[in-house]
């Protein structure tokens, strides 16, 4: 089962498509609320909606092409011949994957925050009232803002997904990709649609919590596995070619580093135990390194979660209140300065000429 469904790929794609579908649902919501005078004219409404979908579709298509090409070339060039350094490769990739997943995973639990952030961004982009578009590109993008935004977003999320997937899953066989990608897309779009249609936010949040827990279990397992592979590499080098002969038995592991060893249930080779290995990082031959790294991962994660929550409530990390406030003040000051300058330029221009100002009004509800 693990050979056709790479769990980490699923989660990466799920997360990215979730964010993308949030963006689209925000845009569609804006349109519904009358951006661009769409509430007055149904044809404009339809046109804008179509822009959104065309933009999204194009972005998605390009992502598929790039992603497919990337994966395809990688696998046809052959990932087989790692030979003696295969363990180092596996080890490093697993650790990198664990870190990537850990960093992006928590964002899924702040879906509301993600939505608000996008709403703000999009509304700012739509509000950009400077009529003197510097070049044709700017004017084009503003005219077709409703199409351009989803296109650019989907493209960026998609490339992010490809890069992350590359980071987590290049050690899996090629046939482990299609199924989780499809499932991830389906799940992400499904949730986005659910949100748009006014689904129960609480229920969605429960599902997301469950999914995130699972994701972090996988990441913890990956981290532990990474350390295990690196230790295995060192051991294989000490013994030489005979390690493979030993299978699961004595000599296949370094007794000095062993915390437990059973001559069965090999997470690399035997059936059901491979699933345990994929999800929990189970090893039939655990070392001090693999066990300690697993526990350290969870401890670090718990600390980070607490810190993040603290930051959300108080606006700053513990003990960093004054530092944070100084930074914020400086940032606000800069923003004020920019706004004043822009306003001066604006007034200077309007005094000179009588140019028409194109405006896209935003109805803020």
């Amino acid at each position, binding site marked *: 089962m693990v050979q056709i469904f790479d769990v980490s790929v699923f989660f990466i794609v799920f997360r990215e498509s979730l964010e993308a579908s949030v963006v689209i649902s*925000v845009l569609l919501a804006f349109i519904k609320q009358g951006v661009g005078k769409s509430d007055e004219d149904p044809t404009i409404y339809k046109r804008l909606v179509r822009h959104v979908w065309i933009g999204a579709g194009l972005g998605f298509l390009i992502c598929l092409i790039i992603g497919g090409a990337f994966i395809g070339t990688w696998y046809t060039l052959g990932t087989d011949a790692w030979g003696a350094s295969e363990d180092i490769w596996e080890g490093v990739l697993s650790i990198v994957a664990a870190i990537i997943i850990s960093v992006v995973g*928590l964002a899924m*639990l702040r879906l*509301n*925050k993600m*939505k*608000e*952030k996008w709403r*703000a*961004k999009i*509304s*700012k982009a739509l509000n950009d009232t400077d009529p003197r578009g510097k070049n044709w590109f700017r004017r084009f993008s503003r005219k077709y803002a409703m199409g351009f935004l989803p296109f650019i977003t989907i493209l960026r999320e998609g490339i992010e997904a490809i890069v992350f997937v590359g980071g987590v899953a290049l050690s899996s066989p090629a046939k482990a990709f299609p199924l989780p990608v499809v499932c991830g897309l389906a799940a992400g779009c499904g949730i986005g649609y659910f949100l*748009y*249609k*006014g*689904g129960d*936010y609480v229920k969605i*949040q429960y599902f997301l*919590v469950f999914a*995130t*827990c699972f994701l*972090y*279990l996988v990441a*913890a397992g990956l981290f532990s596995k990474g350390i295990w592979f690196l230790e295995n590499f060192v051991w294989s080098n*000490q*013994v*030489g070619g*005979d390690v493979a*002969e*030993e299978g699961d038995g*004595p*000599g*296949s592991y*370094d*007794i*000095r580093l062993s*915390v*437990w*060893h*059973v001559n069965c249930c090999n997470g690399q080779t035997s059936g059901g135990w491979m699933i345990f290995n994929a999800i*929990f990082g189970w090893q039939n031959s*655990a070392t001090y390194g693999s*066990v300690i790294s*697993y*526990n350290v991962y*969870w401890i670090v*994660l*718990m600390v980070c*979660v*607490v810190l*993040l*929550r603290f930051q*959300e*409530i108080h606006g700053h990390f513990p003990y960093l209140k004054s530092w944070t406030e100084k930074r*914020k003040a400086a*940032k606000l000051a800069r*923003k004020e300065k920019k*706004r004043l300058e822009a306003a001066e330029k604006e007034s200077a221009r309007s005094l000179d000429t009588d140019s028409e100002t194109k405006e896209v009004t935003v109805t*803020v*509800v």
Partner: protein
Amino acid sequence: MRAFSRLVALAAVATATLAATVQYDFSVEWVQANPDGDYERTFIGINGQWPPPPIECNIYDRVIVNVTNNLGNESTAVHFHGLFMNGTNAMDGPVFVTQCPVPAGNSIIYNFTVDQPGTYWYHSHFGAQYPDGFRAPFIVYDPDEPYAGQYDVDTYLTVSDYYHTSIPWLMANQFLTLTNPTGSEPIPDAALFNDSQNINFQVEPNKTYKIRLINMGALVSQYVWFEDHDFQIIEVDGVYVEPAEASMIYITVAQRYTILLTTKNSTDRNYPMIASFDTDMLDHVPPGLVWNVTGWLTYNNSADFPQPALIDEYNFYDDFSLVPVENEAPYEPDYQVSVDVQMMNLGNGVNYAFFNNITYVAPNVPALYTVMSSGNLSTDATIYGTNTHTYVLGYQEVVEIVLNNFDTGKHPFHLHGHTFQVIERSDDNMVYDPSNPGTINEYPMRRDTVYVRPGGYMVLRFKTDNPGVWFFHCHIEWHLSQGLALVLVEAPLEIQSRQVIPDDHYAACKAGGYAYEGNAAGNTVNLFDLSGEKLQPDPLPAGFTARGIVALVFSCISAFAGMGFIAWYGLSEIKTTSPEVVDIVGEPLDNGDDDESK
């Protein structure tokens, strides 16, 4: 390039009736040499020379070997392989069986009579020392032997494997270590004929040569043949046999074959003679290893020395079918020792060799000295140690050894102090079944070193007519170090009453700080108290130990705790006026949840 020959036309009458004393003074020291022309290394030589000199004597002679250890950094001990040492068990030589190691700067005297003719050899029996060079032939001449007068020249030819690296280094770094879990033996670097290569064995036409072949190697059995020359096997390990016509022999380490080879009529060409490794015994064959060694039966020094022809297969003579000249029907056994051979890893990760789950660990006191200091308790096997695998045998009995080889390799086993009848030797992968025996010859072959096939078994029988402590072990030095050995204490009460340990042997113990009285632990007061004896390492833990269970439980707790924190984080409220959103637009947004206000 030495061809060493001696004419048998000595004054037969004189030597037969006059038992002489032959004395050798050996200073054991380090000597530089380069036998294969590829690599010069330091060997253990004798009296400044390597190869060490052979010992030669006539039957019934007394041999006195005065050994002084001038190595400086290693102890030593000498074993005279194949000699019965009847009545002089202390002269047999294996450390912690019949003597203590002789430390550097000390000496020991081996003083014994030789009552058996034939081809033997002497070598170090301290650790795995002899492959570092301390081995040489020991020839016993007998003018009344069965084949007297049937040959013109009596000479010897040795074969050996050869390591460029010193054995103690290989042992500690490559072999007996946890990074060698399969117990793969170090691969020799070359093969040698007479401690050399490409030798010229000078022969004259129409002569019969009695060639005593000896394998002095550490590991590999060798196939030996002489191109276009057949020969007759007349003696194995000191036992004369009916002449057996053969063209190739298979000689394991420590074995000897004496052959009669009649040379051809003409001197127009020379003929290659070849010794070739049995590469089955090597864990792997490294590229570049030359596992043959060549010489020539040199009829004509100015003729060519052709390269040996390649052969398709080894058609060697199976020594099982040899018939001793003094033939005997199979003995009727009184007592059976049954042992299973296997190799396994113990708790320190190292691969050891076992007889019946016991890997031999040397006692603190040599077993013979335990016999001499234990009075009536010497017949109780317990006092010899838990890990020495000692059997106490009666006097004038017949003992049968059944050996099942559960390993996938061939092993040459040697019994000190005796020759044995080889009753059965099975093919590969067969277990001994007394109700279904294999081939048993009418007059079984006898020798002192015999190989058992992979997965197969063999049955040996011998008479306990030689009171003494006798080692029974695999003669592959690596396996001996892994503990593939057991000890037979034969007729201990007779040893006590008839034999004496010379003072210089005890002196060697004192010089090395070894105990020389008491049980295997050195306890002289309570011989059944073995505390302090050396034991084999603990076995590998089977499955989860306490440490493993704790680790697993703790990891599960961490995972659940972690997931708990994630859930808490996920379900907690967030303020919509989070700072980031404020920054983007410069003013806070209202709490407008689209999904609720539709």
